[in-house]
Each structure stands twice: as C-alpha cells, then as structure tokens.
C-alpha cells in the first residue's frame, strides 16, 4: 500500500487511515451518496480490495466478501453496517458480542489484520480484503482447542461468559505479538475488555500460565 509522503510521519490508526487523509477524503465529495467518500478514500490510499470488487458500494445493501478465520464468506451489507452486526446477523457468527455498541466495553473485540479492534466501531466494508479473526476461529469445538481457551477453562477465566470472546481475542492478540507477557502487559492488553463478573484475576492467571 503506497502511503503519501506527508502521511509517513503521522501515527497509524488501526485501519491505516490517518486523520488528515480521512478529512481530505470527505472534503472533496458532496454530502450525497453515503458511501462514496469511503470508496474514494480507499482508492486514495491504494486499497486494492475495493478496486477488485469493481463497483461502488451503497447506500443499499450489497454483497461483500469478507475473509473470516481464513475462509471467504459473502454477506449482504449496507455501508453503514458495522462489522459486528454483519458477523452476527449475516454470517451467524454470534460468538462476538455487542455490549455497548460504541467501542467502550470490548465485548466485540476481533482481530483485523493482526490488530485487535472493536468490531462495533468498524464498518463491515472497511474489513473487506483484511484478515478477520473471531473467537470461532480460535479452536475446534469438536476437536482441539487453542491453548488460550484451554487455559481459560483450566483457570476459570470465565463466569457468565459474555465478555469471554472479546477477552480471548485480546489475549490471543497479545500472545501473538508477545509470547511471554508480564502481568502488567496482560493488564494493559485486556484494559479494553470490561467484565462485570470480575474474571480479571483469573484471566491474568490463564495468560501467565502460558508463559514458556
């Protein structure tokens, strides 16, 4: 992906769009069709996925292709739909939850191109062409679970279970980047996942237990 010279020094956001280019993108369009600025924006940043789609998206729902847990899946999505809504309602992957719908609680955490993101604050169309990892892809329910899932069960890192999917994805993402995290690093990695039941101490234990 070619990044314009001026953007190279700006902090990167999780979807590769910097504030300057975002505003720039909106600046050149009218307030007409809702999704046009997005597709222009994606074009500006050289995203190949939308070009490969070969069409403009929106405002009505259209078929989009998402790569979820390594599989290509087709979903009917309007541009305003969030990734979590499409995952749950269209693809019937209900493991990812909605707790607050505004990025504050972490229940909707998925991994997008290697970064953990709140899928309630990610538009489904922004996930086109990216690797989406959800809790369903961690392990095989009928077979072998991921080590982190086994550890959660072993150490009771779950109670009611509603925050568990998001918590697992945050922990998995941490371990992917840092196989031997300290307690502080674990706390920071899960600081975006709220749990009202209070599983935190045992979530920490579960991740610490995986230290090699």
């Amino acid at each position, binding site marked *: 992906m070619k990044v314009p010279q001026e953007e190279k020094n700006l902090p990167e956001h999780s979807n590769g769009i910097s504030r300057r280019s975002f505003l720039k993108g909106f600046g050149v369009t009218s307030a007409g069709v809702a999704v046009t600025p997005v597709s222009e924006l994606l074009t500006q940043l050289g995203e190949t996925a939308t070009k490969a789609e070969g069409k403009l998206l929106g405002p009505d729902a259209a078929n989009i292709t998402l790569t979820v847990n390594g599989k290509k899946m087709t979903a009917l999505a309007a541009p305003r739909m969030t990734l979590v809504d499409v995952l749950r309602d269209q693809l019937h992957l*209900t493991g990812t*939850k909605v707790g607050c719908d505004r990025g504050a609680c972490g229940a909707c955490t998925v991994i997008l191109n290697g970064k953990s993101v709140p899928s309630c604050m990610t538009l489904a169309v922004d996930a086109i062409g990216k690797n989406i990892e*959800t809790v369903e892809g961690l392990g095989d329910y009928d077979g072998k679970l991921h080590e982190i899932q086994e550890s959660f069960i072993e150490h009771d890192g*779950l109670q009611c*279970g509603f925050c568990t999917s998001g918590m697992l994805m945050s922990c998995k993402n941490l371990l992917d980047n840092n196989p031997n995290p300290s307690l502080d690093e674990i706390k920071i990695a899960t600081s975006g*996942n709220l749990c009202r039941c209070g599983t935190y*101490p045992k979530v920490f234990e579960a991740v610490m237990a995986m230290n090699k």
Partner: protein
Amino acid sequence: MPKQVQLKVGVEKNLREITAEIPDNTPRPWDGSDELKYIGGYLKRIDGREKTTGRAKFTFDIQLPGMLYARFLRSPYPAAIVRKIDISKAQNAPGVKAILMVQKKLPLVVRFAGQEILAVAAETSYQAEAALKLVEVDYNIQPFVLDTTEAKKSSAPLVFNTDVEEQTTEGDITEEGTKVTQQGNIRGPKISPEDATPDEVDAALAASDAVVESSYRTQVQTHCAMETHGVVVRWDDREHLTVWASTQGTFTVRDELASVLEIPKTNVRVLTKYMGGGFGAKFGAGIYGVMAAKLAQKAHAPVQLMLDRKEEHLCVGNRPDSVQKLKIGANNAGKIKGIKLISYGTAGVGTGAGTAGPAKNIYETETFYSEESDIFTNAGPGAAFRAPGHPQGAFALEQTIDELAYKLNIDPIEFRKMNTANNEIRQVQYEIAFKKARWEKRNPKPATDKGPIKRGMGVANSVWYYFYRAGTQVEIQVNSDGSVEVKNGVQDIGGGIITIMAMVTAEELGLQPSQIKINIGDTNFGLGPASGGSQTTAGVTPAVRNAAYLAKQKMFGIAAELLQSEPSELSAADGKIFVTNDTEKSLTWQQIASKIPGEKFSVIGERLNDHIETKPRTIAGVQVADVAVDIETGVVKVERVVAVHDCGRPMNRLTLESQINGGIIQGISYALFENRILDRNTGIMVNSNLDQYKIAGSLDVPEIESVIIDVNHGQSSTGAIGIGEPATVPTAGAIANAIYHAIGVRIRELPMTPDKILAALESRGGTS
C-alpha cells in the same frame, strides 16, 4: 418414617456431635466427618468449552426465521403527561409490523426520562428505529425533582399522587408486617417492631463513655451486566409461547407472562441456557418481556426485544443512593451500648432504599434503632442489586465502628472481636484475616507515611443471610448405556451451578462429573430457584443429591439381584456398585444400567425444608484492604484485598474464588468509580454508556487473596450456603477505612473520587 442420624457439625475442625432427624429416602447429610472426592475441590466449569468457543448462545444470539426486531420509544422528559400519541406515520413506515402502546388508555403519566411510551416491531432494527422517529407524542411537561434531599421537602414536585405499594423480587429481603406510610415523596420511615424505642437507644447512647455520630452519602449505581436485558418471544400457537430470556429467574419470567397474558403457566416455556449477568436486575418479565410477547402476538411473528446499553442504565434497575446518619456508643472497655441509624435514599420511582441490614445484624449491641425511608424522585426505578442495601450500610457502619475504635484507642480488629464475641465463625475469620493481611505490621496511628504516596490498611465486616426456598424438583434420568442426565429449570448466571450439580451427582453415584449431563434453564423441567439472595446453590444442591440418592437406590435394587445381595449391603464408588463388605463382588455402573427394565428410569428429588435450623442465620465474612493514596492527585489504588468468607459447606472452590473476586471487584468499582449522574436541568442521565459510567477494568484489579472456611451445619443433604452477595458487602467499607488509615481524613461520600480526597485533605489543612 423419619430416621435419626448422628452428625458432626461446627466451624472448620471444631466439631461437636448432634442428632438430627431426616426424612426417609434422603441421604445422610454431608457433615464435618465426611471426606468427599469432588465436593469441596476445584473443578473446571463444564460449560467452559461452549463459552470459550463462542458456541454458547445467549438470548441476544437467538435468531429465528422471520424474527422481528422491537424497540421502545422512551420519554425524553423526566416528568410529563401524555395526552396524545399519533402513530399513523410510524405505522406505515417500511418494515413495520406492529406498534403497541405501553398503556392502552391515555393520559399516560411519565415519571422519569427513559420511561417507556410504546414499542415498535419491524423487520430490521434500523426500520424500527426509523419508525420511532415518525411517532408524534404530545408531552405536557411537568415539574420534576431529582435530588434525594430536595425531594423530601413538602414543596417538592410530587412524583406519585397515590400511595405506592412496595414491589419486591427474589433479590430483595422482605420483612413481613412492617406497615409503612407515605407523605409527599417520602415513603416511610420503616421501623422494625423488634427494635428498641428511640428513647431507649438515646438513653443508652447518653450513658455511653464514647459516642460517634457521623453522616454518609452513597451514590446510585447501575448494574451494568454485559448482556443487556431482553427476550426473544415466539408464539407456538395461539395459546403457547416459547421465550428466550436473559434472566436470573426462568420461573419468574414464566409466571409474570402467564399472569399478564392470562394463560396457564404451563403454556409458557422459558429458556435460559446462558445469560450474560444479572446482579439482581433480571427478575420477572419486565415491560420489555410483556411488550415483546404482545407484539409477537399482534404481528404473528417471533419478536426480539433487547435493550441497548443506554436503556440498560436508565430503566431496568439501579442500587438506590443513601443518606445515612449513624450514631454508635460504647463503654470505655469497647462494648457497644447503642446503635441508631436514620437513613433514606432514592430508588427513583421505585422502592428499596433501606440500608439497616449491617447495622442491625453484625454487632452485638444492647439497644438498636433504625429508620429507613424511600424518597421518590423522577428517575429510573431501583432494583435489587447484589446485597441490596448492604454495601451502602456497611460503608457507613464500618467507618463509624472504626471511628469509635480509634476514639477508644482500641485496635479496629480487636474492637470488632469484642462486639461479635458470640459469633464463632467471625472469631475464626478475624484470626485468619489478621495473619494473611499481616495486620501486626500495621501502624496503629493513621497517616504516618512520608512522601506523596501514603499507604493504609483497613478492615470491614460482611453480613448476609442464609436463604433458601423449598420446592425445587430435580429429575435424574439413568439410561441403559449408563448415561446420567440431570434436569432442572434453574438458570446459571455465572456462578457455576451446572458444574456443582455435576459434582454433587457424581459424588453420590460414585461416577465422574464428566459422565453427568446437566440440562438446565428450561421451565419445562422441574421448578428451580431464582438466582437471588445468594440462594441458588443452597436451593438446588440438596434436590440434586436427594434425586441422586434415589437413583442410586434404584440401581442398588437392580444390582442386588445380580450380586446376590441386599440393596442395603451395597455401595457405589469409582464407577462401580459393590458389596460394601466384600468389594470383590462388584459390577460397573454400565453393566448394571444395561439391565434397567424399560431401558431407562427417572427419579425426582425434592429440596425439602432444612431439618436443622441453622444458627446463626447470618453469613459472615471479613475483608482487609491495602490502599495507596496519591495525595497530589487524589487517586486511590487498591493494592491488595484479603477476603475471608464462609458459605456453609463449600461445593466448588474454583468457582467460589471467582465469585469472591467478582464481589470484591464490584465493591472496588462501587467505592471508587461508579456514579449515575443526572443533569439537574433536564433530568437526563448524562453518562448512560460504559465509557463515562466507569466500572472497574483490568488495571484496577488488586492482588486478591481469599480464604473460604468450612462450616458444616448438616442442615440439608449438602450443607451448601451462598457466597455471591457476602463477597461484595464489605469492600467499600474496608477501602474507606484503609484510606483513613493512609491519610488521616475520612471520606464519607461515595464514590471516593480524587476530587473528594483532595478536598478532604485541603479541609484538614493542606496536603503534606
């Protein structure tokens, strides 16, 4: 014919023998002499796999063909009269299948911002939202009152102009026969008939050598379960419906819907296999459950009605606030002579703001008097919230107790020991807490640390009560392949009852927990308790064990023939049934099961009334908190909590630890962060989300060391008692006492946010 049994009962290893009479056909209660294989150990949750793989389906995840999505229209005003509603445009909006008013006949009185006006069911939630925007409502705006103390004035706007009846759920403690009057917005005071008179307690206080009188304020707290309230309702025919509900009481949902819809209870099937937390707010069908059922009826389609996070904060419950004036007097030796508590609080348009539980039930005192009043305000209704009234009460009580101890120059733990001398459980708990917290290293003088970070250690007592309901019916089915299935309508709200049921069954039948299939959360199964009052484990496990005992007897009947023995001569263990005195004569469980006539059998075990009245009826508990206060920023960090608790005979220590962690973390959150804030000009909650309404996150979690002591009463076949609520009662009080110990000033208002710490330090004479 009841039978007599000898039981060894007591606290930890301090056991004495008693005789008890138990009903025939029930097993000898587990007591202090029993060494059990699974019970009391650590067992991984059997629903762990489902929950960690995303397979567990919560109510929010139920997707039915043709399902409609329903949303409420809510009043943006805290007080109004609605005389006209025009739904003509909304009715014709795209995708709309049904619109129903919450109240058929107008005028509708609105009493809080967020109150339901009507509900729309449409093909998508977007369409439902769009339709709501087309509804035209004529709000005749009325004066409103939000502040608890302001609302007491006779000049305050009246929230209700008729008398309000107290509505309680399974989460509340109800006292029979206390008559309460209502004047203006004040409902109360509620006074206990067994209390001393005000004159008697005033006299005792006047005669005390040392008296402390202090006032405290606590805030409104919302439950914040991660899964919001909601249901999916499907009419299976004109008279039968299936309801998936995020609930703490499957049968409470069933009963309320049956009553409102005027159909037999057996026509309503409620399913709750998994639910995302309740903490007291999820009993009954709620307005959302009733409306969803009616919308589904009208639209001839299943309806999902899940609240969003904002609605969750506004209208489905909260912990009332409190204003408490507490006076305690003691003699120079430290014995408490009198406790007097005058308290009031607002549960908005609801009731339940009482706080006298701790003051009344922890310390031995010569005289006790309390007044509790509900003050109506134009805000969302309160609901039972994990130990209703108790964290508030303990915050005030435990600080006042500490104040008195300091005044008399008596160590805070010593003072508590002295005034709970007759409670053996507490005496044992203080010893353990003292050691684990390293209390002997604690400087008796407060505020002795140098530098900007000041550390302190504080203690607080917990109290809760042993509740249970008889009537739970558990069915156990044994199949010819040896598989065992346990069925009951109870729900698992996260406490791990499923795993405990498997442990109890396995223990009794001599099998492994993994061999037991547990089927719960379906009101087509036998009656189960609502998960309130910390009574799930105490209510369900005896019924499970009683059923398992009956199943075992039946298997013994079959085995006896095969082993040429008598059923009374047999035992079950390690997957086998064998002659007790001749273990070589044995068969496997599967071998015997294969001979079941009719290929399977079912038995039903009941939860009967306890055969022993447990004394005391209180659950104890004590917590010690270590805090670090930054006197330059006012930020408080809880560094460590030592928690010593009792819960009768512990079932699964792994899930018990989780419950205690959860209670402590909620207590920290309540003590330091949470606050429902209403805009004083508009009556609207300004932080109805999870970014501005702050609950404890991973960075707020201290080191927690918990100890669970064994108490064997032998009162039921399992001896289990509860833990969920006792674990959260003392935490805020312990933290407050630790803060005082750290900085030498008392924070008497919750939440104990940095601004309050700094203001208190400033008023004391600067930060140093």
